[in-house]
Structure formats: structure tokens, C-alpha cells
């Protein structure tokens, strides 16, 4: 991220080339800038995993530090942490989200072909939900904005309408294009669309808008049912996930966890339905964690897919927190503690890895580029600006 900060001001230098002996130098500078710009635009939507994780983490910390009626084991621990730490985390999340959005906007401008390719790719299209989910999570975890204010409402609308639009597009495709699309293209990242609806539902319920919350919830759950069955069947011939993307299997337990949280907000208490969804999420987590061999191949080299570990763990920790509030007991408190610590540690570890191995994280090529020869074509528009 530091590299990006340094690189941004330099764009101003890439103005019109002059007809002087220094043209050669200018061309070199321009080409350097352009190459670097094309590097910039290689950030595909998968990078939003980072902002997703950080925003989720911010929400978790906020929830943990909320005053509750009972003094739980964890709360005193959280209270000892300075609130400045939470504010720092929140600003980091905000910053990463803004930066990634800007990068993606630049990519939209300069590599529109790639965007189109991304929209039709079975993994890429689901990550288009990720920015909006991150914004909604950030909105929920805002320290200075109360859910009942007008600005909260406006922002909710701003962030939820794109989710609706993407819903119509993607779920409509499942529905009308039939078997070829869903059975073949369904993969664990498809659950991000479900998670998007559920996050929107939770935010709406917080606002007090029960009907829209229920609407988004039912939309999410209906498609989750279809998706759950399809993913479990693992139809032969379906596009299998590359080994590097195995961390997204963690989304299997993110979806029911988020559903549990959403239903908790809608119905007011952590009732039986929320408990059942939470337990399902817990079971799937145990099932995945007891299969380390599944993730071995993806753990060889650091890449952006590793960030997929953090968000689901955070969601599970959030659900465990709500569960512990409802069911007061030693085991539920212990569960909340363990899961929260785990998610915090994982996020921290990922941050450390990112700072240490930034080179590994940066995109080397655009996986959605139509073809390699097109990359030079994208240089052309920039000359005219």
C-alpha cells in the first residue's frame, strides 16, 4: 500500500510529450508510468477480500466492546484495550476499502474488457459483491454513526441497491440459463452473493426497517438453499476450483453464520432458528478444520486467496458472541473467546504477511485479460488523456 501512495502523485507527470530532444526521456518516463499504470489496473475484484476481512474485524471489535448487561469473561479484556486501537483498525479498514475502490475504478476505466470478462467468470462475478459488503460492514461498525440517523439510511440505500442489481443479474442467470450455469458454475464463492443479501438484511434490521430486512433475508436464504444442495452434490463436470483458491471453502461456514446473525437481528433474540444456523456453521467449520490436507496445496505460496480465511472466521466469532449473549454459560463464553482470538490472530497474521511479502501479493498479470496482446492496446487511451 505504501507503494501505491508513492505512485499516485507521479501520474501528473505523464502529460503530453514535447517535441524536444528530451522526447526520448519523456517517452521512457511515459512508458514506465504506463507500465506501472497497467500494473495498477491488474487488481481484480478478488483483492476486495482484504477490505472484507478488515471491515469484518472492525465490526467484531465493535460488537465485543459493546456494553452488555452481564460481565462476560471477554468484555473486561476488551475494555482494557484502548479505544484508540479500535479506531485505528476502523480507519485502516476504511483506508483499504477506499484505496481498493479507487483502484478498481481506475481498472474500470482502462480495462473495461477485463471487467466484462470478470463478470462472466464463475468465480470473478461473485467478488463484485465484495466491495458493497465491505461498505455495509463498515457502515455497521462506524463508531460515530447511529443506525437510526438519516445519513445511515441514505448510505444503506446507496450500498444495497448495487447488491439488488447484482442479485437480479446473477440469480436471474441461474434461473433462466438453467443447468448449464448453476450446476456447472456453482462453486464456494457463489455464497458471497448470499452473504451480501444477509449483510444487507442485518444492516436494515439494525435500522429498524424490518420489511426490507425480511425481504433481503428471504432472497438470500432461498438461493442459499439451492446453492447448498448444489455445492454438496458436487456435480461431475462442474468447473472445479483451482487448488490455489481452496481457502474460499471457508465460505461454507460464513454463509450460515451470517444467516444466524441476520435472523438474530430480525427476530430480536437469538432463537432456535439462529441457533440452528449457528450450529450448522460450527459443524462445517469443524469439518473443514479437520481436513488440513485440503488446503495444503494453496498454502505453498502467499497470495491474495489467503485473505479468504479471515472473513468467515470473523463472522463465526460474531455469531458466537451473539450466542454467548443469549446462552450464558461457560462453554458459550469459551467458544466466543476462542473464536474471537482465532479470527484476530488470523487477520493479524495476514496483515503481517501482506506487509512482509507485498511483492507476492501484487498482481503479476491480469487473469481476466482477454489476451496478452490486448495489454498494449490499453496503453493507447492513456496517451490521449
Amino acid at each position, binding site marked *: 500500500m505504501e507503494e501505491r501512495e508513492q505512485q499516485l502523485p507521479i501520474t501528473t507527470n505523464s502529460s503530453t510529450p514535447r517535441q524536444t530532444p528530451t522526447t526520448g526521456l519523456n517517452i521512457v518516463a511515459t512508458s514506465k508510468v504506463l507500465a506501472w499504470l497497467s500494473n495498477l489496473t491488474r487488481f481484480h475484484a478478488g483483492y476486495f477480500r482484504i477490505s472484507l476481512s478488515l471491515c469484518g474485524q472492525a465490526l467484531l471489535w465493535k460488537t465485543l466492546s459493546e456494553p452488555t448487561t452481564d460481565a462476560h469473561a471477554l468484555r473486561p479484556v476488551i475494555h482494557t484495550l484502548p479505544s484508540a486501537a479500535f479506531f485505528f483498525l476502523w480507519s485502516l479498514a476504511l483506508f483499504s476499502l477506499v484505496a481498493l475502490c479507487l483502484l478498481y475504478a481506475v481498472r474500470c476505466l482502462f480495462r473495461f474488457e477485463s471487467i466484462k470478462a470478470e463478470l462472466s467468470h464463475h468465480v470473478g462475478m461473485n467478488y463484485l459483491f465484495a466491495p458493497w459488503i465491505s461498505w455495509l460492514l463498515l457502515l455497521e461498525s462506524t463508531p460515530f454513526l447511529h443506525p437510526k440517523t438519516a445519513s445511515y439510511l441514505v448510505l444503506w440505500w446507496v450500498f444495497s441497491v448495487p447488491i439488488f442489481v447484482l442479485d437480479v443479474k446473477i440469480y436471474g442467470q441461474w434461473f433462466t440459463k438453467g*443447468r448449464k450455469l448453476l*450446476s*456447472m458454475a456453482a462453486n464456494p464463492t457463489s455464497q458471497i452473493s448470499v452473504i451480501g443479501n444477509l449483510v444487507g438484511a442485518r444492516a436494515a434490521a439494525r435500522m429498524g426497517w424490518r420489511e426490507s430486512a425480511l425481504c433481503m433475508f428471504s432472497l438470500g436464504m432461498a438461493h442459499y*438453499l439451492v446453492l*447448498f*444442495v448444489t*455445492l*454438496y*452434490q*458436487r*456435480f*461431475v*463436470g462442474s468447473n472445479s476450483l483451482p487448488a490455489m483458491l481452496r481457502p474460499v*471453502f471457508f465460505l*461454507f461456514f460464513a454463509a*450460515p453464520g451470517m444467516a444466524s446473525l441476520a435472523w438474530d437481528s430480525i427476530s430480536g433474540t437469538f432463537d*432456535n432458528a439462529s*441457533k*440452528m*444456523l449457528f*450450529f*450448522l456453521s*460450527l*459443524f462445517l467449520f*469443524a*469439518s*473443514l478444520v*479437520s*481436513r488440513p490436507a*485440503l488446503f495444503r496445496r494453496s498454502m505453498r505460496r502467499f497470495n491474495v486467496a489467503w485473505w479468504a480465511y479471515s472473513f468467515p472466521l470473523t463472522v463465526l466469532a460474531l455469531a458466537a458472541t451473539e450466542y454467548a449473549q443469549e*446462552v450464558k454459560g461457560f462453554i458459550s463464553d469459551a467458544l466466543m473467546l476462542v473464536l474471537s482470538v482465532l479470527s484476530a490472530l488470523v487477520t493479524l497474521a495476514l496483515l503481517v504477511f501482506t506487509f512482509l511479502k507485498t511483492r507476492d501479493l501484487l498482481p503479476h498479470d491480469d487473469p481476466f485479460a482477454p489476451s496478452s496482446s490486448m495489454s498494449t492496446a490499453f496503453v493507447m487511451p492513456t496517451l490521449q488523456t
Partner: protein
Amino acid sequence: MLVTILEELSHQMENKDLQVQLSTKQGFPEELPSLLKCITSQTIAGFDSVECGGMNYQTQLVTIPNPQEDATAGKGLEAAELHGQVNVIFGPPPSSPVEATDCHEPHAISVSMPASPSGLHIVQAKKVLFIDKAGPTAIDGQPNQPSDSDSINSRQPQQGKFHSQPISAGNSCGKPTEGKVSDPFESQLRIPRNDSQRDKRFDPFKTWSGKLERQLSNLRGKPQEPDLEAANDCHSAENETVPAVDRYFDALEGPELDTLRATEVSVLPEDKKWPFLLRFPISSFGMCLGVSSQAILWKTLAISPSMSFLHVSLTVNLVLWCISLALMATIFLIYFLKIIFFFEAVRREYHHPIRVNFFFAPWIACLFLVLGLPPSVTVNVHAAIWYVLMAPIFCLELKIYGQWMSGGQRRLSKVANPSNHLSIVGNFVGALLGASMGLKEGPIFFFAVGLAHYTVLFVTLYQRLPTNATLPKELHPVFFLFVAAPSVACMAWAKIHGDFDYGSRIAYFIAMFLYASLAVRINFFRGFRFSLAWWAYTFPMTGAAVATIKYSMEVTNVLTQSLSVGLSAISTFTVTALLVSTIIHAFILHDLFPNDISIAITQKRPKFSKKLAHLRSASSDMKDIEASLPKNNPELEL
């Protein structure tokens, strides 16, 4: 000299576009020759007559042909002195009269393994040469030259009497072959030599390939077996683990995947009765399920207020419960012995796509026992028992559901079958028991997990996907398992919630509908071979009866009461009929525990499957054979 012969052979093979396979120690994947000419039934008869008839064909395959046969059968080239053994298999030449008459049937060719008297002995590896029909013309003269072979006249019509054997390649010395299937052929080879020793044919299925048994017999003071044992171990192939799941689909057929296809051979001899422990399948626990669920039924009948007009006494429950307890203990003990002595066989059962579900049966039966506990024995059960009983179910679930989700070969679209309901029902039974004991969170946990996976399984089974290899085409008693999950789920939800509310009623009506839709098709349930697993299919009927009784407690009228009585009567009658059948099979027909073929399939498809099919059913048509041939790729293009 033999080496040069082989080299020439191989060159000629390649030239003539034949398939020559050299399987070394490591075992190359063998391909079937593309063209095979078959032997006529006459020659088959001749073949059979030489080898004691078709019934013993399998035996011949895996044992050494007796010396008298060697003269007639040992017509092939048997090379001995290479560092491996070469068994050359080639078909009769085109000029043979056999082929003139039948040229459309595939030839199957095999080689016979000579016994030691002819001076050949298999040491370590076997090299197998497969030669196509065109080949023999070129090598006609050459294979007859080996001086140490008795047989020279290799061009007789009866020539094609070569045995094939399942080749399991690979071996290593000295490693403790725990969990590995040793080369069955190797061990079998030694049988004629040491008649006084115990039957080693079952060694591959014993724990540590029989070493445990030897150690135990040593401990007991039996005479030391000669050094051959050490040699045996040394030479036993160590690699072959359990067959992959595809092999189970290829080799077996039938609704319970327990019938060997006509083209397959069994690793163990089929004519001999295997050791009892080896024949004891895990599906025997179905008996416990059936009897203990009856105990629950009679307990419910006795204590339900809406059924009080029947005046059923609790003694029935007590008697049934004691019987089921005794039965449970017995079967547990026997299977435990099987685990100790035949661990390899247990592993193979675990990898069987249908039998794996029966590994839940012991724990479900234990749960039933606690549910059906007579009030006179005890009223309050400690919560720890529930945790103890649910722990194995939880671990098994983690494994099996995880395989559905992320495993490669055992994806649900391929292996889904009605027996999978056994893995789901455990959740609901555990939830029911936990809620009855007063626990709160645990029952909800298992209910949620069970419900989620039940939805997936239900949809998958209803879809009857074309890639599904295990779904029986015809109705079979296994379909009654469909009724189990909703009926137990409705009772569990009623207990968790406190009353028989809408959720329970929905589940109950689904269960009733499924029961009715199966009951009206009762005609289709005929004509199946009785097996012990049928006991497992009675507990859904009993579960439906208990659910109806619970429903009648909620909604008490003549209809529900008569329905309860009717369903209870049906379930009791079914169990009684099964009991009678079991007794008949056990004591009169003596085939209650037939040879468990489904765990004895080979690692790889046997070489000359077409010939085997012919031999096994000499009068069968080609069409039958083709129909029964397993498809190479059961997964269709979508």
C-alpha cells in the same frame, strides 16, 4: 535365450499393433488387448472338464492347477529363470479350427501357472505378456522351444486353456504390511506345498496379513511354522490398499452392491466357506436396530394415554429390551473380534459405498436402547451417556459429510443412495434422546446438522442423477429408509420444542406420505434375496408407528388411534416375519452369513473378463455380457 525370445516377441508386437504389456514389480496399468478371440463353448467344456467343472473355475484361477493337469494345460510359454517370471499369454493361431468356426466371439486367453514340480517357482514378481491373436503366428515356433516346458503341442484346439489370474503387482520385502493386501496369488501358491499348514488364502484380509494370528498361535504354543512364513512375508506384496470407490461400482451390482458382476472375480475362493468372522458383515447391526426399535414401540404403546385402550403391559417392553441388549452385546463382541482379527476386511467394508453407512448402526442402536429403557430398570439417565454415545456419531459425520463436500471420488452426485439415510438419522435420534434427557443445546446442534444434510440428500436422491451409480433401478426394501428421517425428526422437534407444533406436524405428514407411496407399491418389493441388512429397513416402519402414536396423543380421535394400531401391527408383523426368515436361513438353510463377496473384489479389473463371463455362464449371450460389463466411465458427459 528366453530373454531374446521375449525381445523378439515385443518387437513383433509393436510392429503388428498389438498390445504388449510388461507388468513389473511395480505393476504397470495393464490394458486389455483390443481384439480377443473367444473360445467356443466346446473348448470351454473341454477346458472345464480338465479343471473340474465351471463351479471350481474360480478356484482354479487362484490355486495352482494340479500336476496332472500340467501336462495338458501347461502349453504356454512359461519362463522361469528370469529375475521375474514371465507368463506369456497368447491366443490360438488363426489357423486353428476353433477360430474357423467361431470368429465373432471374443477369445479369452490365459496362462496356467505351473506347479513347482515342473521346476518353476514364482519368486518375486510376475511379468505378464499379453499377446494378441496375430502375434502367435509369428511366435508360433519360438514359444515351443523352451526346453523345460513339458508342453510342445501348443496348437491343439484345447490349447486355449490358460488360466488367468488376478495379478496384483508390486511387492516388497520385510515391511510390516499392516493394512496392506498381500498378493493373494503368492500366498495361494504355497498352499499345495504345505498342506498341513493353515489356509493362507484369507491372509490378505487378516490383521497385518495374518501376522497377528501367527503370533497368537505362537503364543499358544503351536509348533513353529517353517521359514516359509518369513519368506511368505518377504514376498507378499505390500502396496495394494483398499480398492478405490470406482472399483466397487465397477465390480458390484445390485441395490446393496453385494452381487459380483459376471465379469468380475473374487479375490477369495468362492466355493469354499470363508471363516465365520470374515463373513460377518457390519449390516448385522441392522438386527439390533430392528429389535431395539420394537422395544421402543411397545414402551410407547404401554405408556401413551391415547393407547391405553389396548392395555399393553410394560412387560413386553422389558422382555424386548432385554433381548435387544443381549443381541447388541453379542453382535458387538463378534464384530469386535472381527476388527481384531480381520482388520483388513473391516477397512474394505468401510470403503464400500453402501456399507459405510452401516457403521452408524451400532451407535444408533445404542441410542435406541437408551430410548427404550424400561421404566422399571431406571428412570433417570446421566447426561454423560448421551455425550459418550454421540461422540462416535459426530466423528463419523465429520468424515462422511466432509467427503461429500470436498472429497474427490466420493462426491454425493455419484455415491448417493438410500442407505445414506442411516448417516442422517443418527442426528435426529440423538436429538430426540438428548431432548428427552433434558439437554438443550446439544440436541439443537445435531438437529440442525441433520436437517441441513437431510435436505441435500433428499434432493439428490429424488433427482436420480444419471451419474449416480448406486441408486437401485428397482424398488427394494432399502427405500423404506426414506421414511426414517422425517418420522424421527418430527419426534425430535416435538421434544425440543415441548409440544407437537407445526414443524413436527409438517415432518410427520411428509413421513406418512412417503410411507404411503411405498406401501402402495408393495408388489414391487418381491423377488429379492434375503439379507441381514433387511433388519435395518424395519426400524423406519417402527419409527413411523411411534410418530403416529405421538401424533395421536396430540390429536386424539378414532382415525389417528386406528392408524397407530394399524402401523404398529404392520411393523410387528414385519419384524416377526423377518425373525422367522432369519431363523430359517440360520438353522435350516445354513446360509445366513454367505460369503461376503462385496469386500473381496480385486484391485483392478481382471484381465480376461470376457472369457470369464463366458465360462461362468456358458449359455449366456454376448448381449448379456455386454450389458453386465461395467462401463469404463460411469460419469456421463453433461
